[in-house]
């Protein structure tokens, strides 16, 4: 069997990749496999291996033709839904907002819940607590004003001002 890439040497590396219900096979000689970086199983796709050409599979051609020009692209990194389908990974943290539709369904199959209940960065935690405190104070201020309790209202107003000055914009 000859190598699919150089078509000269005996193929010694045989790869099979299954994505969804499609199976792709590639046979490479040792040199081409090294050149294509086959040592790293996580970071290549067989279709890409063959000089970026997609391999002939039954549905590949009509699907590619039908791919709309207006496909959603992540504004931060340019990643597309098709990229995600191929790699199973996102392009950047903003992709979680860009591709939020359907994310829940996928996460349900992977995780125990859909909401993070673990560690929160301290700075963020403190900022969140400050916002919460500000809200409570504001409510008390409204109440104090409504009850014409102006002494307390003045105190609350000062406290709110102090908090706002302390927090970064």
């Amino acid at each position, binding site marked *: 069997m000859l190598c699919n890439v150089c078509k000269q040497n005996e193929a010694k590396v045989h790869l099979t990749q299954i994505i969804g219900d499609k199976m792709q096979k590639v046979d490479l000689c040792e040199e081409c496999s090294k050149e294509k*970086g086959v*040592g*790293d*199983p*996580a*970071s290549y796709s067989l279709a890409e291996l063959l000089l970026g050409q997609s391999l002939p599979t039954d549905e590949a051609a009509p699907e590619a033709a039908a791919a709309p020009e207006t496909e959603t692209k992540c504004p*931060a*990194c340019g*990643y597309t839904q098709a*990229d995600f389908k191929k*790699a*199973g*990974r*996102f*392009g*950047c*943290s*903003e992709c*979680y907002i860009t591709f939020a539709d359907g*994310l829940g369904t*996928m*996460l349900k199959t*992977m*995780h*125990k*819940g*859909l*909401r*993070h*209940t*673990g*560690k*929160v*960065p*301290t*700075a*963020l935690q403190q900022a*969140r607590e400050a916002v919460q405190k500000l809200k409570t104070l504001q409510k008390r201020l409204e109440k104090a004003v409504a009850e014409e309790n102006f002494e307390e209202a003045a105190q609350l107003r000062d406290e709110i001002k102090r908090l706002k000055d302390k927090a970064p914009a």
Partner: protein
Amino acid sequence: MNIHEFLVPPAVFCQRTGPQDRIVMSSRVRLARNLRKLPFPAWAKKPDRLRLLEAIQPAVESLPQMDPHFSAAMDDLTAFDKQILVERHLISREHAAKGAGSGFVLNREETLCVMINEEDHLRIQSLRPGLQLKACWQAIDELDSTLETKLDYAFSPELGYLTACPTNLGTGIRVSAMLHLPGLVLAEEITRIINAANKLNFAVRGLYGEGTEALGNVFQVSNQMTLGESEPQIIERISKALNQIIEEEENARSILLEKKPKVVFNHIGRAYGVLANAHTISSKETMNLLSLLRLGIDLGMFAQLDRSHWDEIFLLTQPAHLQKQFTEKLGADERDILRADMLRERLRTVPRPQPPK
């Protein structure tokens, strides 16, 4: 200082002990972290990755927990250096394949290490001998809390830490233990255990993680779900499962000894026979036979061989560690001969196994 001067010699490395280390070889917790709005390593172009490395590496190096440290860009390490790090379980095989734009920082005690631009911008790892998941978590939590003041982490209040692969989303935590389970393998109970672990949503893998064989009856058990549970809950849940597996392994050993002692002694005696007398032996056969030797040590069948000595032999017979003992470049065939030479020499003064009294 190069990595070989930095790493403690195998003989010292293998003196480390920990709770339950008869069955649990090591514990690990790793966290996946990324920087906000910047492309993840696999999607980032090379200049982006280099910029990311430039931003992340000094931040990691400046951590008090990492002082003193070894720090390098992956393209400054040779394939041989990287293989040594893989055999010490300090980097993943995927990270070993990385070049320019990826990096690695390791602390003096070799208990904390950070892979930069592996699948995520940061893969922080905390390692301990034996079963010490809570200690691993405490150390890594502290390191992470310091690092978050220096780097702008990608974090969402609903989804938690945002990772390249949605399977790591949320806590970004992977808790794992390396278990030596020869009893369950010999008793043909291992498939049942693996299935039970899978049902509880734990992954069971081989010695070097994802996609690797369980050579030498060594299995890595880890959590798969990272979202919807807090880190302590995940650690609690996997600890329970691990304790159950440990108990099953101890049971399997007792039952084997009681019902089929000759089968057990036969396996261990033959393993000793081959290891002490072979003139060429592959790394794979060595690991599988050494597993039986370790079982013999656990059962008290070797008066003059202890576990730290065993750990050293296990490490020194791995391809890169074996190569390190010789200056000239070895081919696979030569390695097999030199491996056998070393094993014969190491076991020369070890009397053959005796059934436990």
